[in-house]
């Protein structure tokens, strides 16, 4: 009896002949699905209308504007210290890389008003900016892991993020929006134990990067979900104006820090990681490598950190001569630009315009997801690493 049942089970498990698949013309109905504005994988309030045929995406149309808070307009409406007040809404546009954006803005104002910046302030700006890049990529790492179905990376990423945010709090008084950079330097000097703390963070971060690497890079599920997904080629990416890790994954070594070295980036040695295929996996790898490079830049800057004041003799209320200026930097998401116009009379900028990388990178989304599965559309969005505050501004 026992033998018989065993044979029977074996028969059902492994049929000797392959099952005959009846060939049918399955009718697929075109379907429109609304994704967002409340959806856990849209990284905020992003709405995407997907046209599906079966489970394949035929077209994806992004709808934005759910977080329009007028960062540009509010930047123009300051009164006495208008050029400083624009930093407050600017911080909240790309809320993951606040200090990098502050850097772009203060450099634009300095260019406009011919303000000299002390050496120490320049070095501290670079150190804090690169740490901000790590913080931002930590968020990407966690969210992208969650998009592929893994929650543990989030925990690891935020453990490191927390360490760095505590440093930001000690330096600028706030965890996310320190509002620390000023035209002409920095608001105040860093705490006395700053150098030691950054060194400690370096140790923690290197350990954490190892963990990041071990958790996802060779993970089989992760590889299956991300390799060859949401591919975009270099030519098309350049046509669309894509920048940042999304462009570098296609093999274009475009990094404003290297091509147009602003601040003191020409003094540091760092590499620009590039990819070859331009898929989700390479975008992830590039961000992981960028975290190492950021740490390396911060380490070099820390070694050469000079003493002296952190604030030049720039007046609080600026009234630059009539003119306009454009300053761009390499944000954690791509090329971030600030365009300022001064009318020569008012103490606030006449016009503020931010060129935000997410908004431009989002244009590539449609081409990435057409023909892909619905689940991969989520990954494509995650791999662009959008921040809706910056898209809508």
């Amino acid at each position, binding site marked *: 009896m026992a033998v018989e049942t065993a044979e029977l089970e074996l028969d059902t498990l492994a049929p000797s002949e392959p099952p005959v698949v009846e060939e049918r013309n399955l009718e697929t109905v075109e379907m429109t699905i609304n994704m967002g504005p409340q959806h856990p994988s849209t*990284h905020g309030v992003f709405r995407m209308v997907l046209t599906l045929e079966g489970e394949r995406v035929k077209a994806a149309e992004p709808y934005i504007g759910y977080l329009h808070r007028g960062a540009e307009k509010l930047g123009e409406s300051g009164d006495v210290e208008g050029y400083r007040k624009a930093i407050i809404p600017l911080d909240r546009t790309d809320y993951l890389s606040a200090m990098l954006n502050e850097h772009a803005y203060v450099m634009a104002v300095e260019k406009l008003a011919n303000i000299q910046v002390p050496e120490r302030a320049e070095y501290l700006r670079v150190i804090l900016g690169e740490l901000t890049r790590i913080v931002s990529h930590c968020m990407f790492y966690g969210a992208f892991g969650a998009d592929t179905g893994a929650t543990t990376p989030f*925990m690891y990423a935020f453990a490191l993020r927390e360490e760095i945010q505590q440093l930001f709090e000690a330096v600028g008084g706030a965890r996310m929006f320190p509002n620390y950079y000023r035209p002409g330097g920095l608001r105040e000097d860093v705490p006395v134990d700053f150098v030691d703390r950054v060194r400690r963070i370096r140790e923690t971060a290197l350990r954490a990067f190892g963990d990041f690497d071990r958790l996802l890079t060779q993970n089989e599920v992760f590889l299956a979900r991300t390799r060859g997904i949401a591919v975009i080629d270099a030519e098309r990416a350049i046509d669309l104006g894509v920048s940042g890790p999304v462009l570098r994954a296609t093999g274009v070594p475009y990094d404003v820090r290297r091509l147009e070295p602003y601040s003191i980036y020409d003094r540091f040695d760092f590499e620009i990681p590039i990819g070859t295929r331009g898929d989700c996996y390479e975008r992830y790898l590039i961000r992981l490598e960028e975290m190492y490079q950021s740490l390396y830049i911060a380490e070099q800057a820390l070694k050469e950190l000079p003493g002296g004041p952190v604030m030049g003799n720039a007046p609080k209320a600026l009234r630059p001569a009539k003119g306009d200026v454009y300053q761009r930097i390499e944000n954690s998401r791509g090329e971030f630009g600030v365009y300022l116009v001064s009318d020569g009379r008012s103490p606030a900028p006449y016009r503020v315009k931010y060129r935000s990388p997410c908004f431009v990178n989002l244009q590539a989304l449609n081409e990435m997801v057409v023909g892909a599965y619905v689940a991969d559309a989520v990954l494509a969005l995650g791999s662009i690493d959008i921040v809706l505050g910056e898209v809508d501004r």
Partner: protein
Amino acid sequence: MGISLPQDAVLAGNQTAVPAPVPFSPQPENLYARLPQGVVTTTVDQLFQWARKSSLWPMTFGLACCAIEMISTFMAKHDLDRFGLIGQVGATPRQSDLMIVSGTVTTKMAPAVKTLYDQMPEPKWVISMGGCATCGGPYYRYPTVVQGVDQVIPVDVYIGGCPPRPEALMHGILKLQEKIMRQASEGRRPNPDLELVLAGEGVT
């Protein structure tokens, strides 16, 4: 007769008439002494509210910058799970009873927030996290920003800060749990009974 006896005198008279039962005493020490160990007396309302406050299911719902600090609160180091809040379970309003409005509500987003609130089953609570959701915050009087989410949905606890620290969010959740327990004795959702949690961190 014109004589009015004190009440204990009547009781004493009854005892002499019917001697057998032990008199019920409303004094708590006597009552608890008669209960076996491990038995607690409570009201059904309190029991239910206790269960509700101990396993709040927040809706995964991030609006803006505050969402990042909310995620920080859920993740390692701060670990909101120990208060019974489980993040990242389901992003559906149908199974949640707590909405943390974490960020700026714009006029374009407000109808969606209202719909989500309406989809949540009763009983439900709302925490307004951060300056924007509370009163417009840094976007005070900006035309596209709703000046406080309480213009759209009722709010139970307000947390100040831009964004509030994770500790401030924890404080807000503890305040909400206190409030839920208070609702057991006072009835659900008493009229304007609002909590205000002041965070240490403001706009610099």
